[in-house]
């Protein structure tokens, strides 16, 4: 080990020179607190999974979530037994809370892909400690979202008709319909997100395999680790595959919410038929997703003692993303007025008037408060670096994005072209029980995830440590 005693590693020189040149306020808060080594990072994160005693709080939380799953099971049984009539949907609003919740959940999922793929391509190192967690959130949000359209078909046992397969009826799905595009987009998104997540997990599963003491736990992790041994050749292809997956996921995530917005924009309903829906929906999805990441990460870092890895810098950056996307969303709300009024179309103008003064005007005002006003708090560094205020803002956004979909979907449908066919939409008990139930499913999966898998990417955290830097030019000759 006496090879480089005489040379000072670069990372020990760098901090001093930096302090001389750059004023302190410009040096960013670290993405990992000082004093960690490869071993402490590994042990800290893997112990959360491998410890024998499960904290009581985990059981309480999981039980609560499981209660939600029970609510979902009962609701699904009712729906399959009686049909979609138990929901509030009827003429004229054929899409109600089922589609609102579908769009809401799928939008939440998008932040996970944004963090794991787009921030990877942009070389934003701070993403490292939150990407695994955010990807898991994506998967579980897509699982919750997928329930709604699958059950909305009314006869879910025929859902396989959505997929093109050779059949005795000689029929094909309607490939020209945005709803069919949605089937392809959402199923591709779910598959690619799951692959991306699993590929990211392989080296960490190997760590768990090597750290576990119980033979069966060792074998379970070992089976999923696929015999990963960290060979340099393997790492080379692994990093390449991961980069390519990030490159593929980036346009994919944009396409998914674009296609979700086509479900509306391709129709002619006033309030839906707008060309700016794709960017508006994508920005809204990122906005909602970051709010949900904050909602989950702020309690999780406290509960699992992860403040060293998910630092204030992460929270602050997420607050900034929330502010930026919030401004885009508010701009879109304003543009809706411009397009409507500038069109001179009587139905478009009525739609806007109906939003602001019609029977659902409370929702529209609440939408502006939650999505337009509340994120403005993020302009202030003091609020942006306070977990409490970040959490408050995130909760506003969570509610606001649900309201946005309510304003777009039933509030547009309930009064369209013919006043004689106007009506009202109200969610029923079963609408709300499904919503509660999908939370149960989401959180139950999330609780299982934090118990059985490392919620922070261990191998990527190792690369953030200064001693991970190796330079071939330091070679002695």
């Amino acid at each position, binding site marked *: 080990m006496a090879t480089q005693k005489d040379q000072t590693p670069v990372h020990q020189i760098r901090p001093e020179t930096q302090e001389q040149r750059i004023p302190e306020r410009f040096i960013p808060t670290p993405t990992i607190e000082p004093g960690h*080594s490869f071993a402490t990072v590994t042990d800290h994160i893997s112990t959360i999974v491998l410890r024998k005693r499960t904290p009581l709080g985990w059981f309480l939380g999981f039980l609560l979530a499981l209660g939600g799953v029970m609510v979902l099971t009962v609701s699904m049984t009712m729906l399959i037994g009686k049909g979609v009539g138990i929901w509030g949907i009827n003429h004229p609003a054929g899409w109600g809370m089922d589609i609102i919740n579908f769009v809401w959940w799928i939008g939440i999922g998008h932040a996970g892909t944004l963090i794991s793929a787009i921030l990877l391509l942009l070389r934003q190192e701070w993403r490292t400690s939150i990407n695994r967690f955010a990807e898991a959130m994506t998967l579980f949000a897509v699982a919750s979202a997928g329930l709604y359209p699958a059950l909305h078909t009314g006869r879910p046992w025929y859902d396989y008709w959505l997929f093109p397969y050779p059949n005795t009826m000689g029929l094909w799905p309607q*490939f020209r319909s945005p709803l069919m595009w949605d089937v392809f987009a959402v199923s591709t998104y779910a598959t690619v997100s799951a692959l991306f997540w699993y590929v990211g997990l392989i080296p960490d599963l190997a760590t768990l395999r090597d750290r576990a003491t119980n033979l069966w736990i060792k074998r379970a992790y070992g089976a999923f680790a696929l015999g990963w041994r960290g060979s*340099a050749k393997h790492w080379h292809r692994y990093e390449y595959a991961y980069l390519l997956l990030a490159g593929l996921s980036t346009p994919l995530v944009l*396409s998914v919410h674009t296609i979700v917005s086509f479900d509306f924009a391709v129709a002619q309903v006033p309030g839906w038929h707008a060309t700016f829906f794709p960017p508006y929906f994508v920005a809204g999805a990122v906005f909602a997703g970051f709010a949900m990441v904050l909602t989950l990460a702020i309690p999780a870092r406290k509960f699992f003692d992860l403040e060293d890895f998910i630092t204030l810098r992460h929270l602050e950056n997420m607050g900034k993303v929330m502010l930026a996307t919030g401004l885009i969303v508010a701009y879109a709300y304003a543009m809706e007025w411009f397009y409507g009024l500038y069109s001179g179309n009587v139905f478009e103008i009525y739609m806007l008037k109906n939003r602001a003064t019609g029977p659902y005007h409370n929702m529209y005002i609440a939408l502006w408060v939650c999505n337009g006003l509340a994120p403005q708090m993020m302009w202030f560094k003091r609020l942006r670096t306070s977990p409490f205020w970040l959490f408050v803002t995130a909760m506003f956004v969570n509610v606001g994005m649900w309201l946005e979909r309510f304003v777009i979907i039933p509030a547009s449908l309930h009064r369209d072209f013919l006043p004689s066919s106007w009506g009202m939409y109200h969610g029923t008990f079963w609408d709300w029980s499904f919503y509660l139930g999908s939370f149960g499913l989401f959180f139950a999966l999330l609780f299982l995830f934090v118990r059985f898998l490392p919620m922070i990417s261990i191998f990527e955290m190792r690369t953030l440590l200064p001693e991970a830097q190796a330079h071939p030019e330091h070679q002695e000759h």
Partner: protein
Amino acid sequence: MALGKVREGLYGVIAEFTDPQSLLVAANRTREAGYTSIDAFSPFPIHGLDEAIGFHKSRLSMIVLAMGVIGGISGFLMCWYANVISYPLNIGGKPYNSWPAWIPITFECTILLAAFGAVFGMLALNGLPMPYHPVFNVRRFDQASRDKFFLVIHARDPQFKVEDARQFLQNLGPREVTDVPW
């Protein structure tokens, strides 16, 4: 080992290092000494280590490209076949070959197959899953997924002589050098 002997003889000689810098230097020296069949193991990717052990290019990008092209073409052909050949529907005299409406599905199929290519191509080229591998016989190899770094010279290397290889690795300043049985 408990798993039983797979083959007689030696798989190679392995050296354990305690930091990435030493591993990188050692790998470069080993390659420069003329060894061609070597491998290095680390708990995270180390840049330059792949070149240090003499590994240059991966075929993965070609696999992903090919899969993406196959996905795109087959996705488009599926829509085209359904709407033009198998079940043409005349809707207000509009053309059967309404290709712009099929772009979203074409795109999604491209991404899906390219992603399959990236993941399964990577696993296949890496030879995974591989539940048994001789390096797992090394007593301290479980540390390779925590904070230790390993360099192995394979017995199949044409220049390999057990005594020389042991001595060579010992001179690189490792924590310890051990034999790797099959």
